[in-house]
């Protein structure tokens, strides 16, 4: 198969009108089997692709098509890949990162948004979208006072549809919880999975750190805050199951470190962990290459790897194959399995981003807190 950009390249009549027609005729980036053609158009000095795919050349340069103002780059990615990207354009010697103006597909995160492309086989899961038949749960916002950190902390509590104060519910505490709601559609996902009976009716607490890189980096105060302050606060106000098997912690990136660290410091309190793209940096020898923010994480992970104990019973771990953290996550897996805990580990051809974490929610949550799917027929 001749790629569209190659066919264009071969034309002898390349002029602005031909380029206009090309732009008009395709959706961008052009996905032809596993070949992705990124295209940028503009009078610039240089264009690079910022893609965050670990393992590929960093920021590869787009090629200018002849003397035109069209720039392109062809990347080969395996099926079911999903990547986020921006263009780094240089004008008058100045760099600027921009999203792909020809691609309406974007993914938001706390820093803004990126353009998105995927190869054949990837489909955005249907349970991430609003479903009219689904009974919605509700979210209540609170400020709780923290002696550990001093001052007030915002937390939000998700209550499932048809919540009953007379019934007891499993509890999940989610680090960066409101980010999960904003960028990983967690409210919608919880509603849908509960409605579909795949997930237990449960109470979910969303926490947000004031300084996540410090607090989530295995900070002892954070574990104390979760176990000694948040948990009793929730148990006092809501009907929570008293059994550790019905209590879980969840987080992504540094939030996964915070979850693991809290469970490790208070073994037996949380029977379920969902750890996504954990920043589980460690050193066998030499210095930590990831920078100062990781120093406390490395200290914790080295201690954990030395004596993991059995902090919990069931762990669902996921990581993107295109993340640099894939090495740390893969190496942690056999260690966790040796402790006797039940561990499920899943990889996806995706990066360190919220939609990757969103796409794993169904499998992870329904494994940790299975709903009555096989038993209820209303």
């Amino acid at each position, binding site marked *: 198969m001749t790629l569209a950009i190659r066919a264009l390249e071969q034309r002898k009549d390349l002029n602005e009108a031909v380029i206009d027609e090309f732009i008009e005729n395709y959706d961008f980036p052009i996905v032809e089997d596993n070949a992705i053609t990124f295209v940028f158009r503009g009078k610039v000095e240089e264009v690079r692709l910022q893609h965050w795919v670990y393992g590929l050349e960093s920021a590869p340069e787009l090629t200018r098509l002849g003397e035109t103002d069209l720039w392109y780059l062809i990347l080969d990615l395996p099926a079911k890949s999903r990547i986020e990207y921006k263009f780094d354009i240089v004008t008058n010697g100045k760099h600027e990162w921009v999203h792909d103006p020809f691609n309406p597909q974007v993914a938001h995160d706390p820093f803004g948004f990126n353009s998105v492309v995927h190869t054949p086989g990837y489909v955005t899961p249907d349970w991430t979208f609003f479903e009219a*038949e689904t009974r919605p749960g509700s979210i209540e916002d609170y400020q709780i006072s923290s002696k550990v950190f001093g001052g007030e902390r915002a937390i939000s509590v998700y209550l499932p549809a*048809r919540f*009953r104060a*007379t*019934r007891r519910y499993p509890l999940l505490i989610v680090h960066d919880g409101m980010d999960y709601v904003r960028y990983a559609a967690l409210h919608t996902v919880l509603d849908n999975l509960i409605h579909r009976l*795949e997930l237990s009716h449960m109470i979910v607490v969303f926490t947000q750190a004031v300084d996540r890189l410090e607090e989530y980096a295995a900070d002892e105060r954070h574990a104390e805050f979760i176990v000694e302050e948040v948990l009793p606060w929730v148990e006092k106000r809501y009907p929570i199951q008293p059994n550790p098997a019905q209590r879980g912690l969840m987080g992504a990136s540094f939030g996964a470190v915070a979850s693991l660290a809290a469970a490790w410091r208070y073994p037996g309190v949380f029977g379920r962990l969902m750890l996504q793209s954990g920043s589980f940096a460690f050193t066998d020898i030499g210095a930590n290459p990831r920078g100062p923010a990781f120093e406390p994480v490395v200290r914790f992970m080295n201690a954990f790897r030395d004596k993991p104990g059995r902090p919990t019973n069931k762990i669902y771990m996921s990581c993107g194959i295109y993340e640099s953290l894939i090495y740390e996550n893969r190496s942690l897996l056999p260690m966790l399995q040796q402790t006797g805990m039940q561990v499920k580990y899943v990889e996806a051809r995706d990066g360190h981003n919220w939609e990757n974490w969103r796409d794993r929610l*169904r*499998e992870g949550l*329904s*494994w940790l807190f*299975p709903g*009555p*799917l*096989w*038993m*209820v*027929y*209303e």
Partner: protein
Amino acid sequence: MSDLLLFGPQRFQSTIGDALNAMEVEGPCAVITAGWQEREMEMDELVAGIDREVINLRLHHRAEEFFEADTIFRDAHRGHQQRMRQLQEIYRIRLSHTLACVHQLTGNLDNWPEDVVLAEIEDALAMVRELDRHHLGHMRNLQEAFLEEWQPYARPALKEHHLELTDTLYRCPAVLIAGGHVAVLLNRLRLLGLEGPIREKTVLASSAGAMVLGEQVVLFHDSPPQGPGYAEVFEAGLGLFDDLVPLPHARNRLLLDNPTRVSIFARRFEAASCLTLDDGARVDRVDGRWHPRQNIHRLKSDGTVEELA
């Protein structure tokens, strides 16, 4: 006259009320919503439009009261339930291997000559049926032994409930059984000794309510978030029929456009008709024969789904 009317889910298309109103017999209708558990009494939507007296039998509530009053029985019952769950787990493991073989062979027919592989698939399927029969028998024996040993509705804390229910049912020519949690519903019906009295009534049942009335309760979902999605025989039902497997929410729960799965399902339960019960569905039994009335489809052994009404 129909003695048994089975319906699909009632949330979006409430059809039981019309059927009940059209019945010529007079008298109140007993309502069983135990499958809804703690929401048992929230039946306004279900009974809206019914132009006769309805009496909710409150089976879930009564059982909870009973468990609280008779802790010796409650503990024995928990132990019994635990044993049933363990048996189900073991059956599930055995089934996963036995049925996987059928799926693997059926999904790769091109690998072997037809005259070689088809007979082997039939044999593999016969092993699945045998396992289902074995499990059902085991569960039934366990259940009967427990009820015989403990005689729940003869125990003081339940005796009065049982008598009151029997008396109420005596006055009701019809019983409406809503869906919900199939195990809870079945369990409450048995615990309170309603298997016998219900047989004498015209029964209108939706979703799980229809499932518990059969000879065997079949649990099903083709695409669960975990596992291969193999239908499971659960427990013996109340045995009001043995020639039909009701499939509520079939459009959501089954891959009806997958001929392999449809065919294996239909052939596995070949002694009965596997009928979908989606929104608006209704099938009546009249003089021992089933009459599809609305939105009823049958899973066929050739992998197709036939519209019956």
